């Protein structure tokens, strides 16, 4: 579904991605782990068109997308929960959600239905529906960013650290949603600092280090890999809310 | 290392400032450039202050021409109507301008972005109207005549060369002062306020105090420039201190490079020469060409000419 072929990206003179290749098959959950500054968010920005790769190609549904502008890429069916949330701070929560379904703006009923669905999943958002998104608490904003991305029924969802700032119960909810999405046949690229939980639900995973893929394998294999354990899973105290 | 680079820059500047007037005087077709440079220097006093305000602490002011006008009219009125010595009038003007800036700045600087622009703009227009309407004091729109040249103790600043060195001496002093300020805890506080007022407050920086202080500083510098202007031209009228001039000062700062003192200086000299000298040949087309140059600069070197140039130089070396 998504194929990234030896992509290089730069921030002016900083070489942030140094030939990253990976692929995500239809209906898979693929997890990307990596230390701080490894280039995970940079990869997301490159896939959805905010950064032009200086070399390499990206295909989505067999179409080259590294030459398309952001809004065209999104139209193909990719939705993103970006790092730093990027909500519309001066607009009410409800309008933020509506904007998530911009591509379906003609279909009033659909928008209404999806909004209801999101309010069901994140009840706190219903309570705050008329509040300006910029005044939400950090976790509420994160929920809004996730809900907004799901409004457009995308084929591929890219989540950049979705659990950041969320309370344990809500993190659990988010992981449930991710698994439900897969059950619906959607494809997911998940970036998580909470690597253990992320790898556990993943079909496959990649490890990114200073702009390069250094390891790849099934979720389970990576979980058991000693380097991964040492570098990303910590001392191995299991999280209380993890099964 | 960083410091030595700025010392080199300063050295080049100093040599240029000292040599230029003699160069100009020697070459007949540009002998009057010294007069243009005097104006550029006077304006540079305004824009250096504005650069501290805009580039460092991130506040915009469209009232600088008004502050310059308060200085100029203090000098004009006090020396002609009340026969004050020029230095006393100059200092009184600076004090008055500082006080006015303080009173206006306190509530205004709580505003953000366009609202701050509107507030300072509004204040500038009000001052301009007062200059126009208080005919008894200011001479109204016809202006104030009969201002004598500047006298410092027994020195009567008379010849262009004397004016040049007086003005550019002051500019140099202001550059040194501002440069030092910018590279100190206070300069960092300005930058912090610019970047994030909340975080700056949490670091113990009194945001409103510093904003007002730098506003007052820039106003006082503008006032000084105004007094010099009045003495140099020996005539002032409200139209020299209207909104258009405030906008021009902002343009000078932006074109040269906002967060860079050299940028403000360069932008001032460049735009002064462009609009007073070099564009004359285009006659009717002058306005369009001026606009097009501004447009090109802001589009292609939005960070300003000086930062763009120094980036280029750094990449080469």
């Amino acid at each position, binding site marked *: 579904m998504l194929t990234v072929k030896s992509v290089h990206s730069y921030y002016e003179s900083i070489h942030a991605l140094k030939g990253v290749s990976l692929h995500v098959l239809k209906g898979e959950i693929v997890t990307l782990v990596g230390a701080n500054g490894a280039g995970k968010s940079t990869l997301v920005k490159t896939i959805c068109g905010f950064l032009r790769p200086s070399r390499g190609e990206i295909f989505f549904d067999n179409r080259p997308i590294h030459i398309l502008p952001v809004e065209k890429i999104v139209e193909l069916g990719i939705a993103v929960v970006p790092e730093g949330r990027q909500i519309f701070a001066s607009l009410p929560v409800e309008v933020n959600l509506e904007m998530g379904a911009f591509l379906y703006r003609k279909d009033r009923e659909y928008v209404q239905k999806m909004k209801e669905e999101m309010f069901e999943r994140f009840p706190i958002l219903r309570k705050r529906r008329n509040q300006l998104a910029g005044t939400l608490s950090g976790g509420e904003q994160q929920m809004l960013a996730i809900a907004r991305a799901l409004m457009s029924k995308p084929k591929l969802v890219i989540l950049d650290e979705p659990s950041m700032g969320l309370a344990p119960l809500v993190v659990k909810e988010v992981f449930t949603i991710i698994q439900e999405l897969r059950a619906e046949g959607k494809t997911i690229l998940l970036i998580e600092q909470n690597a253990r939980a992320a790898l556990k639900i993943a079909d496959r995973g990649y490890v990114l280090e200073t702009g390069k893929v250094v390891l790849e394998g099934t979720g389970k294999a990576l979980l058991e890999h000693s380097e991964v354990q040492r570098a990303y899973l910590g001392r191995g105290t299991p999280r209380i809310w993890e099964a | 290392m960083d410091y030595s680079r700025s010392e080199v820059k300063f050295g080049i500047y100093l040599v240029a400032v000292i040599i230029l007037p003699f160069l100009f005087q020697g070459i007949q077709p540009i002998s009057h450039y010294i007069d243009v440079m005097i104006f550029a220097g006077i304006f540079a006093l305004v824009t250096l202050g504005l650069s501290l305000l805009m580039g460092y602490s991130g506040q915009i002011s469209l009232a600088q021409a008004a502050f310059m006008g308060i200085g100029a009219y203090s000098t004009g009125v006090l020396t002609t109507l009340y026969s004050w010595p020029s230095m006393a009038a100059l200092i009184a003007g600076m004090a008055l301008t500082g006080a006015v800036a303080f009173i206006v700045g306190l509530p205004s600087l709580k505003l953000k972005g366009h609202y701050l622009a509107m507030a300072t703009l509004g204040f500038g227009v009000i001052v301009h109207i007062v200059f126009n309407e208080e005919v008894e004091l200011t001479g109204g729109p016809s202006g104030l005549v009969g201002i004598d040249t500047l006298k410092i103790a027994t020195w009567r600043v008379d010849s262009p060369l004397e004016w040049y060195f007086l003005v550019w001496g002051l500019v140099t002093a202001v550059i040194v002062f501002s440069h030092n300020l910018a590279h100190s805890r206070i300069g960092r506080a300005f930058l912090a306020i610019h970047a994030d007022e909340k975080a*700056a*407050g949490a670091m113990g920086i009194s945001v409103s105090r510093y904003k007002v202080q730098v506003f007052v500083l820039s106003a006082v510098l503008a006032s000084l420039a105004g007094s010099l202007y009045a003495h140099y031209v020996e005539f002032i009228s409200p139209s020299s201190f209207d909104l258009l001039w405030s906008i021009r000062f902002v343009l000078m700062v932006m074109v040269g490079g906002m967060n860079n003192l050299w940028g403000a200086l360069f932008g001032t000299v460049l735009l002064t020469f462009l609009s007073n000298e070099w564009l004359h040949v285009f006659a009717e087309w002058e306005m369009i060409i001026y606009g097009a140059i501004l447009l090109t600069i802001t589009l292609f070197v939005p960070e300003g000419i000086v930062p763009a140039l120094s980036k280029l130089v750094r990449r080469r070396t």
Partner: protein
Amino acid sequence: MIKRQQEQSTILKLEGVSRNFGGLQALTEVSYRVPEGIIQAVIGPNGAGKTTLFNCISGLIPVTSGRIFFRDTRIDNLPAHRIASLGISRTFQHVALFKNMTVLENVMVGRHVKSHSGFMACGFRLPFMRREERDIRDRAYEFLKFVGLEPEARKPAGSLPLGKQKILEIARALATEPTLLLLDEPAGGLNAAETEELGELIKRIKNLGITVMIVEHDMNLVMEYSDRILVLHFGHVLAEGTPSEVKNDEKVIEVYLGTTEAC
């Protein structure tokens, strides 16, 4: 760095602190005492009012009613910069660095409250100011070294990856030499290994004699490192106690932690 002697007196006292936003009660009558020298965690569901509480303590927003005492000084009516100079420093949930300044300069700004040169001294580079400036720089380096960001000193703060930006915020807050440090979700954006390093860093900070208040959703960090926990729920105090007490509190499990069964 200075080591303060440990004592079990109260460093921060909240008395019936409330804060409304329009019709919304973000904090309702919160009363609490924070003993000096401990790591005090504040947890609670999203929107419980934790950040709001920190904002009230640090003076970023005023309280609607109630009183806050820092040692014996009433601080709920003081502006943020006054509170900072009294010795309360903080980090932000959304990183609030001075993005275009370098990492080192960010920390140097933190030294603001500990330096005094005025406009004139700075403008004329008086000898006093030069000495102070050198001192600011040296001390800032020390703090960078303390958190391990020394190699990045010359980079613009905005170009650091998120995790390092969070650490930098801690360094900047430490540079004000606070006696009370408020950390708002410092582990957000850090992976498990990095979070453990952060835990150690917080411990070292505590060992300097600084009281640390920390808002965090990473329960490993909270349970392992904090001495006491305050649980907020819809602006009310839901529970308080030691980690083991809170961990087993029914109400806390229900609204916040969730049960440990599989999902």
